[in-house]
């Protein structure tokens, strides 16, 4: 080793203790919900054990709605007032939203096979979820395929914003098209108290876990940004040193 070798580059990165604690809490809640669903809730009179998909299915749909709405909102903010944090948040929400949309789209047919007698039917909410998921996947793909990251960011944000009114109109259109989805929460709620506990445990668990996933991805994107700017600084420094 010569005396000229550069000092090891150390960048302090804080340990995300709060995030880890949140993930642990989310997992514990999900575990509790699973245990409660398996041991305490009664099987449905008509549907039997298949009805138990309901808890995680509806909770995933909640999370999907929340994250995708947040993605559209933060994208709109980023378009009006460009902000790296809003952009990172929009991206993380969109990605987590797609994960939970896939959960909804796989758990739904399991239930539908028993209840409606078929895995898939062209029913409003199913159609809407499928179309919105495809749109979200397209926006994520677009970010990766843009020629330069900055234009990809603006284009992706514009697409995400465009998706919001489109989703609303898709919702109206497919609703008029014909419908059969059970309206559990709008129509009287869940009657059995054991079922209610299971449902809200699942909702709390999935929302906590999803929020942690969003934060983890957000942190990851921000660290990538930071690493990129540090690398730029470093090469600028080396250039200057070489010139001197």
């Amino acid at each position, binding site marked *: 080793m010569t005396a000229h070798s550069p000092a090891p580059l150390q960048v302090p990165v804080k340990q995300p203790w709060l995030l880890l604690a949140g993930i642990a809490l989310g997992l514990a809640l999900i575990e509790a919900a699973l245990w409660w669903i398996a041991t305490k809730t009664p099987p449905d009179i008509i549907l039997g054990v298949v009805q138990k998909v309901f808890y995680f299915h509806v909770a995933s749909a909640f999370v999907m709605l929340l994250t995708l709405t947040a993605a559209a909102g933060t994208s709109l903010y980023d378009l009006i007032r460009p902000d790296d944090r809003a952009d990172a948040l929009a991206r993380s929400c969109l990605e987590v939203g797609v994960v939970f949309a896939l959960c909804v789209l796989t758990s739904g047919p399991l239930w539908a096979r028993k209840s409606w007698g078929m895995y898939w039917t062209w029913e409003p909410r199913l159609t809407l979820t499928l179309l919105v998921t495809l*749109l979200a996947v397209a926006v994520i793909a677009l970010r990766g*395929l843009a020629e330069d990251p900055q234009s990809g960011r603006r284009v992706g944000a514009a697409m995400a914003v*465009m998706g919001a009114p489109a989703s609303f109109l898709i919702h109206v259109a497919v609703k008029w098209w014909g419908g059969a989805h059970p309206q559990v929460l709008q129509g009287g709620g869940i009657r059995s108290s054991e079922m209610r506990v299971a449902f809200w445990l699942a909702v709390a668990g999935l929302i906590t876990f999803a929020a942690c996933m969003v934060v983890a991805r957000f942190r990851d994107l921000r660290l990538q940004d930071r690493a990129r700017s540090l690398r730029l600084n470093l090469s600028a420094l080396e250039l200057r040193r070489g010139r001197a």
Partner: protein
Amino acid sequence: MTTLRLTWLLLQKDLRIAARSREVLGFTLLFSVLCVLIFAFGFLQSGSAAVRYVPGVLWVTLLFASSMSLLRLFAAEEEGGTLPLVSATTAGTVPLFLSKAGVQLVFTTLVTALVLPMVLLFFDARLDAPGPVIASLLLGLVGQSVVGTLCAALLVHVRLREVLLPLVLYPTVAPLVIAGVKVTSMALQGQSGQGTTDWLTLMLVFDLVFVAASPWLHGRAMQR
């Protein structure tokens, strides 16, 4: 010069180019004929009533044909690298956007003028009251052109945009296709009234939302 005047000048320029070369329009028309033929091969069996396929074939053909011409909508500006210059000389991106949407509307209207009679002829359908169908086609084409132009404009600097354009466009215009198919099938069955009006209102709302929002979104996304 006002935005409208600039839009009109750009629109005239684009239409003149299209009228002289006739490439994109010609191939789009050819494609739509092929599309109807393929649908006929796919759906028609001897002995079954062909009329019930008319709404679907009509609207899907129009959607496919419109994505064909959308892919070439910004080609001239892109190949010449003149997109930033156009928006610089026209004080913003709104005239550019509106003129391109106008070009797309003219193209798709011409395609419709060919496809509608062809579908009715090939699928042995009679349209006794064409009013609602024509209204739905007008609303549908305006909405498809505006959303399509927005998607095409946003995807100009994106790789694999030929693949991405349908992926973004088709889910977004799904309400227009559903409504259009509904209105057309009701008109073919000789029904009219509240149902038709509701669907046309939905299409109108779609158009108003995207005509208002798209130029703004395009401008925001394109600024350097």
